[in-house]
């Protein structure tokens, strides 16, 4: 058997190199997010947001932008025979799940690197809450990557995958979104960041990551069977 670390690095490296070269997912995700911020800005007719409204706008936008990337996560594997290549190699198939989830975390981090500062410019009076927000973003990205990778791998062989991914994914990420918005709300409060129940929400996010990470790792092998 090829060591999982080697296979993980090979698959992740391949995905990142392909994305850098083709820019098929990230620009679309970022453009979608920025456009949505513009729509919110004019739709709400507000130049400043705080608390739950700011948190809701941020997370709804990031989630729907992430769906674009999740939809495309396994396209190359389906269209170019990558699934067979992985299945023919002497590797633990769960490595594919881990590598794809890691690639998605990188995409989400890059998306947030671009869009969160734009969100702050558009809507926030102070950027003081952005530093602790990093912890929320990281934990939410891990959960979204685990769930998104699992759902994307199930939907990729379906003709209706563009419909299936949001239809199945969105209900599954509701608990994570509740925790992410709950943790973000005090950070973006009008009078500056607060930490009311911040730690509890982070714990919920961590638990969500653990459950869906283990679930994906456990069932992914079966999803690759014919």
């Amino acid at each position, binding site marked *: 058997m*090829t*060591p999982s670390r*080697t*296979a993980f690095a090979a698959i992740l490296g391949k995905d990142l*190199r*392909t994305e850098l070269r*083709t820019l098929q997912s990230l620009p679309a995700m970022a453009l979608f997010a920025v456009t949505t911020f513009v729509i919110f800005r004019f739709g709400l007719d507000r130049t400043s947001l705080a608390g739950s409204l700011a948190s809701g706008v941020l997370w709804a936008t990031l989630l729907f932008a992430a769906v674009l990337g999740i939809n495309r996560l396994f396209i190359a594997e389906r269209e170019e025979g990558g699934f067979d*290549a992985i*299945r*023919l190699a002497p590797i633990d198939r769960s490595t594919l799940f881990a590598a794809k989830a890691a690639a998605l975390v990188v995409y989400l981090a890059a998306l947030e690197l671009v869009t969160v500062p734009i969100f702050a410019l558009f809507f926030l009076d102070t950027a003081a809450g952005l530093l602790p927000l990093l912890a929320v973003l990281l934990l939410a990205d891990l959960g979204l990557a685990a769930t998104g990778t699992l759902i994307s791998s199930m939907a990729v062989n379906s003709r209706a995958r563009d419909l299936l991914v949001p239809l199945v994914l969105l209900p599954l990420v509701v608990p994570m979104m509740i925790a992410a918005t709950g943790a973000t709300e005090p950070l973006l409060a009008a009078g500056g960041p607060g930490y009311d129940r911040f730690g509890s929400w982070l714990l919920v996010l961590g638990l969500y990551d653990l459950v869906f990470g283990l679930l994906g790792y456990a069932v992914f092998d079966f999803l690759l069977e014919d």
Partner: protein
Amino acid sequence: MPPEQEKGTPAVAVAGLRRDYGDRPAIDGLGFELEAGASLVVLGPNGAGKTTLLRILATLLRPSAGEVRVLGCELPKEAWKLRGRIGYLGHEPLLYRDLSGRENLRFHARLHGLAGDEAAARIDSVLAATGMERRAESRVAELSAGMRQRLAIARCVLHEPELLLLDEPDSNLDAEGRELVRGLIGPGTGRTRVVVTHDPDRFLPEADRVLRLGIGERAAVA
């Protein structure tokens, strides 16, 4: 060179094999044996189950019923032991369009546990053997179908498999390409081979055994 295969032991042994797609059996009651180092040519019309057979032997499909042993591994139970010992060339080249030929081969080498100088040497060697050195840095999307097939053959033998499972290996190849790849996947390599083809004139002369699959009739082994 491929690892030494035990003489006298069938490399492939199939008995009572059936594979269903829904209610329709693609293969039903198939049985044959193939000695190590021998070549089996599989013939039959479209829909006779040739590709299905090859994908079962490659561990990509599970049999619905019957016994399949490949290189001493019982399928599907011991498929994990077999992967890495077979070279599979299917209808798809299993190459990523946005990576170059060399990047694709490097990716496959890493999946098979090859790295560093050894991987680089093998990649250079299979690129040379397929006549693809000059186009090795081109993206696969920019290559002709014949060049992709040459690269697919290079990928198939990169990890020096004991058993070659080849589905129409000559498709899209010109005369020069066909001659070049014989050195990698031809009978002279000493590897056990299962070749699916619609071109009996070309492959029958090099066959040790022939399997004729029909639709709705029993397979004939010669």
